[in-house]
């Protein structure tokens, strides 16, 4: 911890209102200093490089890439980067991915301010943190089947409203193969039909709309 300057914080979010709120909250904490903000993944990497923050608040959804990808990019260059993933919704797969990608914490944006700041402090000290209910959600799906990348891709196409043959054409595979993948997806998610699969996929953070 850099005592003369307090904890340097980088906030990556494309929502100006939220950034304004965070800035206000951090400004109220003497030991915390918002050194930079970024609204895209690419900008986040640049700002990180420039400011070398102690803690990075990273929104899961960014206009150019996901927060997890941006986190991966930062951690590629700065393996010790302490990054907290922020999200409006919780989803077990996202949490899993975030944790797998090296996130130190996973926070719902509507978390009460005191807890929020507390988590920043913990992470700044090098600890990790998961809110209680996120941990529970995560626990529910531990050991569950994980969708393969191709399956996630297909589920994403289904969520876009594509038909099987369209998906096949898009991915250069046969329609039968698409159907076969879909069967696996339905089985793994315990969904009864493609609509339900999409709903589960969204809820669990497998896919994003």
């Amino acid at each position, binding site marked *: 911890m850099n005592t003369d300057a307090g904890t340097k914080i980088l906030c990556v979010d494309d929502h100006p209102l*939220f950034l304004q709120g965070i800035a*206000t909250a951090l400004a*109220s904490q003497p030991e915390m200093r918002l050194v930079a903000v970024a609204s895209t993944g690419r900008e986040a990497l640049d700002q990180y490089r420039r400011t070398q923050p102690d803690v990075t608040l990273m929104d899961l959804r960014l206009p150019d890439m996901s927060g997890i990808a941006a986190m991966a990019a930062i951690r590629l260059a700065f393996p010790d980067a302490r990054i907290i993933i922020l999200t409006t*919704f919780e989803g077990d797969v996202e949490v899993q991915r975030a944790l797998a990608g090296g996130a130190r914490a996973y926070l719902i*944006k509507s978390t009460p301010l005191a807890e929020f700041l507390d988590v920043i402090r913990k992470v700044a000290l090098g600890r990790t943190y998961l809110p209680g209910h996120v941990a529970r959600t995560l626990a529910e799906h531990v050991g569950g089947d994980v969708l393969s990348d191709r399956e996630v891709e297909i589920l994403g196409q289904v969520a876009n*409203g594509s038909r099987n043959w369209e998906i096949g054409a898009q991915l250069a595979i046969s329609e039968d193969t698409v159907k076969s993948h*879909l069967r696996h997806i339905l089985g793994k998610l315990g969904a*009864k039909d493609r*609509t*339900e699969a999409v709903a589960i996929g969204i809820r669990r953070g497998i896919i994003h709309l």
Partner: protein
Amino acid sequence: MRYHNRGFIGANLLALAISWVPGWPPCLAANAPNSTTRPSTEISTSTQTPNVTAGVVFLPVVEGRDVRFSRISTSDGLSQTRVSQIVQDDLGFIWFGTQYGLDRYDGYDFKVFVHEAGRAKSLAGAYIYSLFKDRAGMLWIGCNRTLDRFDPRTETFTHYKVETDELANLGSTVVHISQDRGGMLWLATSTGLHRLDPNTGAIVHYRHSVDNPRGLSTNDITWSGEDRNGDFWVGTAEGLDKFDRATGNVLLHIPMPDPIQVAFFEDRSGRFWIYHEFGTGLALYDRASNTLTTYCFYPQKPSPDADTGVKGMVEDRNGDLWLGSPGIGLLKFDRDNRRFIRYRNHVGDPHSIAEDKVISLLRDRQGNIWTGLHSVGVNHFSATKSQFEVFKHQADDPNSMSVDFINAILEDSAGSLWLANDDGVNRLDRKTGKLTPIALAIGTKPMIINISEDHSGMLWFGTYGRGLYSYDPNSRRLNAYRHNSADPTSLSSDLVFRTFEDHAGNLWVGTGDGLDLLDREKHSFQVYKPELDVRHRQIYIRIAEDKKGTLWLGTDQSGLQHFDPETHHFTVYKSDPNDPNSLRDDSVGAVYVASSHQIWIGTENGLNRLDPETGQFKGYDSRNGLAGSAIDCILEGDHGYVWMNTNKGLSRFNPADGSFANYSDADGLPGTDLTGWASCFKSRRGELFFSGFAGAVGIFPGKLEEVPYAPQVVLTDLELSGAPAAIGDGGPLSQSIAYTDRIVLPHEINIFSLSFAGLDFFSPESNRYRYKLEGLDRNWNEVGSNIRRAAYTTLPAGSYTFRVQSATARGAWSAPGTSLRVVILPAWWQTWWFKSLYITVFAVLIWCAYVIRVRQLSRQLTIRMQERISERTRIARDLHDTLLQGLISASIQLEVADAKLPAQSSVKTLIARISAQLRHMIDESRNTVSGLRSGQQSDDFERAMSLVPNDLGIEGTTDYRMLIEGPRRALRASIRDELYWIGREALANAFRHSRGSVVNLVLVYSRKHFRMVIRDDGCGMNDATLQLGSSEHWGLSGMKERAARIGASFSISSAIDAGTEVDVSLPGHLAFEPENRVGEVRQNEAR
């Protein structure tokens, strides 16, 4: 000079009898030596011969012209000119055997059967020597050394072998065929007599043998026949033999001096006539007394080797015998007067017999007599006597009119007939038949066009251009009245068309220029015309007087006029083409005031009846049955019948039933056109006379016997696509169309025609026909005898019945007539299986189209749903990015602000409340965004509903129960979506706000409706909340709106502490997919 009428003939006969037969009854003694029978030495003593010979009876021959012959020649289609054989078959066809073939005649057309080389079933030979119809209906034809049996049903010939091998070179041609009552056929040949069993074809030969003196004395057999006693007779070159068929012996031999073609004819009274071709030709044999009497119709006995005898005999319905002679022509034996009436050819008379050499005779079933002639074909005539007495020019007869055209006819009060033509006037003594020309000083061509007799017995002659003459038949004084343009009291014109004496004895004269009244004292005329001051010719052709004494005048082109002699007032009736009830034509030749007071008007163009009471005309023409439309003169006969002469014979109109009966030359009229100078006359005895171009005719209408009969109509030909249909050969005809009652035609033969004929030979031309094809025609098609053919094209497949009936000119239809069932087979594309296939394919196509459409709709629905989802997602993003982030930001900042406030600050409470509200809003927004984002959780409605609490993130102890009633059915996608949102909202309220322990969801699937009830046992709401909703229940109005949008009823009931119940219900037809199919399609797509 002879008239074609019985009266004249009677007169002639008398004259001839006196000149020819002074010694009548016949002189036996003078001729006895010549008529002695010669005993034959060859005949055994056991063979009888006539023991008495009555000698020769010479009978006078008189000329007869009362028969109207119809001629048929090769130009009509006869195969050859010499008709030596005539028979009628069982259907009624007449068959002729000629030197070229066998001809079938139906009254109009011939069908000729000839030898066709290479065709086994054709006639074996050409020259027909003998022709016979057996009792089975088969025709037997003897040609040169061949014998054929012809089956009229199949129209095929079967060949029989007659001659034995040892006789082959002798040439046994069958010259005569007969059938005995045992059914055996007897064939006469020059090689003996042969018996043929028509069933087995077995032949027994009877021949002369020197070893058997009791057998046939010669092999030259020319004739055979069985008499009514059952005795069998054989005509040989030596005479007529009574032949015992059992033994082959001759029982009686009647030798003939001139035994060529000897035959017998047994008349209805049982007299046994023997006739033969040469010599005298006729003898009467009395079988009881065994005597033979020779009859001779020549002044002297002809030589036995002269071709002067008799070739055929028939008896007509009246019992009169007719004899055909190759030497003298056709003879009728006038038994009562013991004389012969001879009918011979008259050059220039087309209705006389065409030739005097008659070689065959037949009486058909109708009574017509057919004469086969040596060299000019065949003639036939009706032996029924005509009731019409005819007056016309007769070739070779000086006692006849000089030309056919008779201008005027009148019977005077003394009973004499007056007949006028352009050459003058003749008086006919009807008792003697003597026609006397009357010498008149009017010129060589007086052109007398009308005759009348006044009450004093004075005759009045009107001429064409020579004025008016009165003639006293007793004094023979002739007085002339002529037109004089300088004298207005003279005759108005020298064209005098009519003289008429009215009831008061006034003599009216219709001239070419007015109606003149004669002043007998002053010999002057008063002239009347409708428009005296206008120089317009008024030609008065006919004058008639009604009961009131007023005159009805027929004019040439000036219509019908009515004249009142009292007032001299004319009323003119003219035709009006636009008024069907006006006069039919302005040329009125005939006017007749009937006893019924109706006035009959004959015009150039039809008949009118004028009702004098109403002044209404009623018109008749050929469409009503009138023979011809030009009517020349009208008379009333018996029973109120109205008679008129027309350009096509006579018409008799029955006012009672409006029917016409027409008479043509076939009925005995002198010819066709009986119009002329509007001439007719009714005698005091009721005899009607008409005269005109064709001659004159007299008739006592009461004597007209109408024997109503309808000709039997037969089908004569079937043509398929324009070609005659062959019998057999795989065609539709297995036998002659005349015998066929059903034909089956394949569909590709879509043009066929049927020809028909009424086998009535009296007057085939005037017969009428009507036909219809049941199944196609509703009404009869009536046609004349010239169109005896019905043609049909492209009939749809099916079963039809062709019916045809015939009638004579005046008779009823031949009900039921002849019928033929015509079955037209369907084409393969008309068959039931093809139709079924067609319908099936069509149904499948419809089904496919339906499925495709459903898929389309389904895809559109999916796309629409997808659009809604993406729209929601966009809204969710917007909410997420703006509202939610803003709220979170605001919440964070508020907490920062709160932290900076001193702990005792009174604002802190307020901030805490704002902060809580913000947090609540964030939660609500998160839920909304989450709902919008993830949408309905499953296509399966129950499953989606079951997932709602999970989706809402409901955690707690509230029990969620789902109850489903009735068989589940697929909900319409759009309905399902709306119901989901209603249910989701209601469940959210129940879980979050009711604080109840149990939330029930009930889904009711019934046939008629779908119902969803969400019920909790929580705190409930008060009425105000229910009415207005609250901040916590803002979803209420949304639910109501959704329900209204899908046509569902929505109700919510709640009370404080009594829980809340939301009830959504909508009709089944709105809620459910019509069939499971759409659901399945969607399900299939999902997989």
